[in-house]
């Protein structure tokens, strides 16, 4: 490569909002309903039906906008974006072009060169389209409109990112903000967060933007990183060969690790936007804004700082715990129930992360309650169970959110604290293992380990190894 190039990237991120109902009708947004169950005349675009805006959608959009330092448009409207495609029965998507709800924001990301601001051009509210399912047998396409009308926000960034790493950092930042707000679970794999990448290259130092392409179908952070790398190289190769980049939409095929241009006939677009006459404008009052502001949660940056001041736990733990809103909530709630912060953090950092990793789950998938975690910690603290038993109980609790107190009781896992019973077992073990006893008495300190093990086995693990050790030494 003779010249040095710079990659310029902007993102369009669609986020499915966590509202219970669709954006303009009272149909459920629940995932996994039977095909077309969640449909009505509004979300299937029947003539004469009347869409009415879901207030929750507006609240979420404004909350995300405020968190991303945006100006909130005080008088906003909806527009119709016209296109014909089977996923869209009304032949237009209700979106916002002229007066989007949020504009001119930014979020800060961490880069190796320090913090960097990524500009947010705008955020608008819109409806999702139906789902197309390819029928392999009949070579036709099937359409399920359950997703039609599910509320989305589209977050359009400025072309401020320069590498795949910055893109991932930006997406992580958005994901955390939105999860902290409870506005979406932001799962790329499940499509509740989707990113289109606009990318161009230019010679380093040039002020002028190159011709960009838009890349679609990116459903994991890994796919995004690979697609950026691939598209950057493709464009540089074209320029090096003296050819030019064509402005087009490309579809990433992660299996083949390559992208291809969508045929221009499919890509032909002239959306002929116009204001939607069915939806009256939205006027946002100062009171409404204040209400949303007052409800904003503590975000990660503040939380990190507070944890450092309040809890005696390592910075690394703080990073991991605050990296998930659900985990942070769980941590705080368990501590509030009286558990020692360091103990709570240990259970989250070691056993919880281990199981999450093994089962390829997200922290958001944790189902056990803070009450149960606090009880488990209390059981270990009071030495009612030993650490081996605690780990076993934890696995069951992770799986079924069982009440550890009851579980330990029912399964008879409590340590035998009855000194008499313990003493009896120890005496039996000593009697049954004369060789080890002899070895110990001859100065082989290690022999006691074997005797502890034998006692634990006889007690079915329900003894405190420390007490056993102590008792053995006493009796020998």
């Amino acid at each position, binding site marked *: 490569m003779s010249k040095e190039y710079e990659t310029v990237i902007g993102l369009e991120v669609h986020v499915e909002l966590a509202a219970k109902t669709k954006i303009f009708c009272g149909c459920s947004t629940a995932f996994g309903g039977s095909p077309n169950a969640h449909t009505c005349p509004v979300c299937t675009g029947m003539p004469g039906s009347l869409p009415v*805006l*879901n207030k929750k959608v507006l609240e979420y959009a404004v909350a995300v906008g405020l968190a991303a330092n945006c100006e909130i448009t005080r008088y906003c409207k909806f527009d119709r974006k016209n296109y014909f495609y089977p996923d869209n029965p009304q032949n237009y998507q209700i979106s916002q072009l002229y007066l989007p709800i949020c504009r001119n924001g930014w979020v800060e990301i961490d880069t190796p060169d320090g913090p960097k601001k990524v500009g947010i051009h705008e955020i608008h509210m819109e409806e999702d389209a139906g789902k197309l399912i390819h029928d392999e047998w009949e070579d036709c396409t099937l359409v399920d409109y359950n997703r039609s009308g599910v509320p989305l926000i589209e977050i359009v960034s400025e072309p401020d990112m320069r590498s795949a790493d910055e893109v991932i950092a930006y997406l992580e930042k958005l994901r955390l903000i939105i999860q902290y707000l409870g506005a979406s679970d932001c799962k790329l794999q499940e499509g509740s967060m989707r990113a289109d990448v606009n990318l161009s290259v230019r010679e380093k130092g040039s002020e002028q933007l190159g011709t960009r392409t838009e890349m679609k179908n990116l459903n994991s952070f890994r796919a995004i990183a690979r697609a950026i790398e691939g598209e950057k190289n493709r464009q540089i190769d074209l320029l090096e060969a003296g050819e030019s980049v064509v402005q087009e939409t490309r579809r990433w095929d992660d299996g083949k690790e390559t992208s291809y241009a969508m045929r221009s006939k499919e890509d032909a677009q002239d959306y002929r936007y116009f204001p939607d006459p069915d939806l009256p404008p939205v006027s946002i009052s100062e009171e409404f804004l204040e209400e949303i502001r007052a409800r904003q949660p503590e975000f990660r940056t503040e939380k990190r700082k507070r944890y450092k001041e309040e809890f005696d736990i390592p910075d690394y733990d703080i990073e991991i715990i605050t990296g998930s809103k659900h985990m942070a909530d769980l941590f705080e709630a368990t501590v509030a129930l009286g558990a020692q912060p360091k103990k709570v953090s240990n259970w989250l950092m070691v056993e919880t992360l281990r199981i999450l990793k093994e089962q390829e789950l997200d922290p958001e998938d944790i189902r056990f309650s803070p009450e149960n975690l606090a009880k488990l910690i209390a059981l270990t603290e009071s030495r009612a169970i030993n650490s081996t038993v605690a780990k076993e109980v934890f696995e069951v609790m992770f799986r079924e959110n069982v009440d550890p107190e009851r579980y330990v009781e029912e399964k008879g896992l409590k340590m035998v604290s009855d000194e008499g019973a313990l003493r009896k077992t120890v005496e039996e073990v000593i009697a049954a293992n004369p060789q080890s006893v002899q070895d110990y008495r001859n100065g082989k300190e290690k022999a006691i380990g074997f005797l502890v093990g034998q006692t634990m086995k006889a007690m079915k693990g329900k003894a405190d190894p420390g007490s056993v050790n102590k008792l053995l030494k006493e009796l020998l």
Partner: protein
Amino acid sequence: MANIITDETIEYVGILAKLELSDQEKEQAKIDMGRMLDYIDKLNELDTSGVEPMSHVFPVQNVFREDVVTNGDGSADTLKNAPEEKDRMFVVPKTFE
């Protein structure tokens, strides 16, 4: 007629509208569209500078619904609109993506 619609334009509009027109229909459509644009030119003669574009007739704003599920299973009614149905879904010709 002041506005002349080219063959390329009618071709492009056909793609956007997903319409296949015969040559005869294309010629007719070119004339019709030219006339429509002439009419718009006529409207454009009126000076509307300083007039706020009107998107809604009634002075109504902030009409919201609460986020409460009010609709049950609508598939039976929705699927009445399907010319062809399979597995409770609409069947359409094989579609990209």
